[in-house]
């Protein structure tokens, strides 16, 4: 039998997106869509392509798992909460479908799942993590641009990229302390 990976305060998960290795192929988008049976017309994760005057590289875009998450703050029923290991999740049973969180998210990471009657977003494939597997996007990445980092592990090479400042959050000025970090080339 597989041993579930330890989740809890001893671990602190983050996603590292190395844009120097991302080829913008959207393998991650579809892997996520299928793995999480995301309904037609919605995505938990997409690639924002580079555009003239905009981003110079493709950017994987999904929930930033903020440490100070506006979605958590506005949720009237505490259905959205941040786990001790850093993953921001939604408790369907507590959610009343008010959609405050969708409006509050500055990264536009949430959509409303009509069938479930709750907002939905990336949960870092928490079911896969508990089965000892990497998130679907990380597992399928063609350019090997994605990595799950554990900031609580001093030996973790990907966490080291965050600590050194090589991998940086998007829009830190929003003050939400995101847990998705981007490596951008020179």
């Amino acid at each position, binding site marked *: 039998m597989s041993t579930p990976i330890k989740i809890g305060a001893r671990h602190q998960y983050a996603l590292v997106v190395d844009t120097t290795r991302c080829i913008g192929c959207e393998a991650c988008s*579809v892997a996520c869509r299928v793995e999480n049976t995301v309904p037609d017309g919605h995505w938990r994760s997409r690639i924002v392509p580079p555009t003239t005057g905009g981003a110079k590289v493709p950017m994987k875009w999904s929930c930033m798992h903020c440490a100070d998450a506006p979605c958590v703050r506005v949720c009237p029923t505490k259905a959205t909460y941040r786990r001790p290991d850093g993953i921001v999740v939604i408790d369907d049973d507590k959610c009343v479908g008010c959609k405050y969180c969708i409006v509050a998210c500055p990264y536009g990471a949430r959509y409303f799942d009509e069938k479930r009657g709750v907002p939905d977003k990336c949960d870092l494939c928490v079911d896969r993590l508990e089965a000892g597997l990497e998130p679907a996007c990380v597992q399928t990445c063609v*350019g090997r641009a994605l990595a799950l*980092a554990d900031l609580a592990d001093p030996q973790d090479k*990907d966490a080291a990229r965050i600590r050194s400042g090589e991998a940086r959050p998007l829009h830190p000025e929003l003050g939400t302390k995101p847990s998705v970090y981007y490596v951008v080339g020179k």
Partner: protein
Amino acid sequence: MTVTPSRRTVLQVAATGAAVAALPIGARELAGPPAASAAQPAGTESVVTSVCEMCTVRCPILVRVRDGKVVRIEGNPKEKSTQGAICARGNAGISLLEDPDRVRTPLIRVGKRGEGTFRKASWEEAYRYIADRLKLIRASYGPESLGVGRRPSAGDTFLLTFAKAFGTPNIFNHESSCPLARNVAMHVTFGTAALAVDYSKLDYLVSFGRNHMETLAVPQAQGIVSAVARGARFVYLDPRRTPTSTAATTWLQPRPGTDLAFALAMLQVMISERLYDQDFVKRYTHGFDQLAAAVVEYTPEWASSKTGIPAATIRDVARDFGGARPRAVADPGWFTATYLNDFQLRRAILALNALAGNLEVPGGVFLVKSLLKYGTELGTWKKPAFPAVTAERVDGAGVPGRFPLVPVTDGMCQALPESVLTGKPYPLKAYIAHRFDPLAAVPDQPRMIEALKKLDLLVSVDVYMSDTGAYADVILPECTYLERTDPVIEASGLAPKIRLRQQAVSPQGDARPSWRIYKELAEAVGLGAYFAYRDIDEVVAAQLAPLKLTAAELARSGQWTPPGAKPTYLRKSDPGAPVKLKTASGKIELFSAELAKLGFEPVPRYTAPPEPPRGTFRMIQGKCAVHTNSATQNVPVLHELRPENELWIHPGPAGRLGIQDGDGVAVRAGGAEQRGLAKVTEDILEGTVFTYHGWGRISPGLTRVRGKGIGLNALMPITTCPISGSLVMRETFVEVVKS
């Protein structure tokens, strides 16, 4: 991240899950064939090793099945060149499988051709319908009046066996609309088209429009990304900014169709500055002096006047390329149905590799090490000798005086309309299109439609009602790659390798695998003796018999390499080691006596592409990473990612034409018109417009994509390279107006 011991163990077990028979992985267990998985308790998940077919690369996959349904497809982590990655298309296999638009029962046409009106039929009725007509056609016009076309695939052998047993030489595939110019150039130069690039180990790559990150082959893209991350330089030439421009260390934007000038100037610099591998050239090449004499005039300054790229840049690239040899590669390319000068461009590119002396060394180019090189090969099922064929091929492939250099295993799919409509050299009367859609793949669509209408019999064997299917008399629903086991696939590279595509779930509706379709059709035509196998398991067993391997052993990890066979570079330890090449000289033919004899340039020389007449744009096309040619635009999830193509046009000309981003535009050429949306962008050169291939679909059976976007085949004429037989698809000029 570094994983805790328990986590590492778990990941490794997961990674090799399919290999560790019956070792439970959480709720997952290894599944054998689907018969076994069907008997599993509800809620149990099994993993079937298989091979993707969302494109032609055939990456190894693990198919997760729960309660008889595919729940997920992942890359097989046992494959080092992909490390478990698969692309968006591979991830979307389940969306193809479940697409309500799939044809799930045989259909016989009741309406006019093209209307897409069919009635459901039993397989027996469909076979009888086809067989009756094929017999009549054979009796009236001879067996050669049957043509068959297909996308190369693992199941090819059944259609090919059927065609050969029937007695026709007219067997086509899609290659002349894709890599044929490259393949013929490789045959002429290296004596084989089985020449590959060792991407992950190279230090310098020059790509002449080979758009690796969109025309995506996962092992190649991953190899390049790793090489660049290690410090390799990657120079990419493309008139359009693509994701490959972003991935490259240098992107150069040449005028379209002038890549040959750039390559010739690189040759000139390498030779005049003695940057080439002189020992290699002496030992392994033929005709260096003639090449050197031919390129003297092609200075970087001259090439700059053609390409628009500064001479100093061209000189720098040539010097850096020479400096990085032998781990320097000029990419042979993939889609090469571009310009009339493309064949000589490929010849020049191959010459660059020869001058780099990169053959059979790490980070260079290598000859594919097939099973045959290890003294064995796949077997086949027993069948009688095929009837002798006396008729010449309609397309002239392999025929002296016509297209002697075109391999008869490929042929030229564009020959169909000429044969049917003019009767020259004789008319095809029946056509079977297998996973191949001439209306979506071949230019001059209006003429192709006329030809299809004139056929006595048109059969489409496909997952969808393709555009060609809408004109067919009968559509036979083939099941998807997730619903069938196929013959063993050879996937050799630096070492021999075979893979097995295994059935993961039961076929939906009444869809059948091709091993069964052609066996049963042959029986209906009276050719059953050629298909004397019981089922696919018997075919696979016959293939594996010479290897002393069973299907179960192969299925365990999904792929197999002969014991002891390691990745091999023939010149790694001995730069003078013999390398056998099947050319006339036994060497790399920089000068080709064969080409000279046929009246073609024996060494690459420059010919300029035609220039757009005033008021028109050159129209170029390409592929996007989430679709495969014209095969996947209707697959629901992939359709959502990119539902439509757009016309890329530079802001300069767009402004003059009053076209703003997102406006409707009409694109006109040769009296035809296509409509779509404009994407106004500086990512394309001023005189050129671009759009992705695969849209402008006409089949009523493709409910999502039909009528969307710009169909290029409606606008392009059929132009064929007289040397390689390749189509020429970037020499069409279009008018663009706001609509």
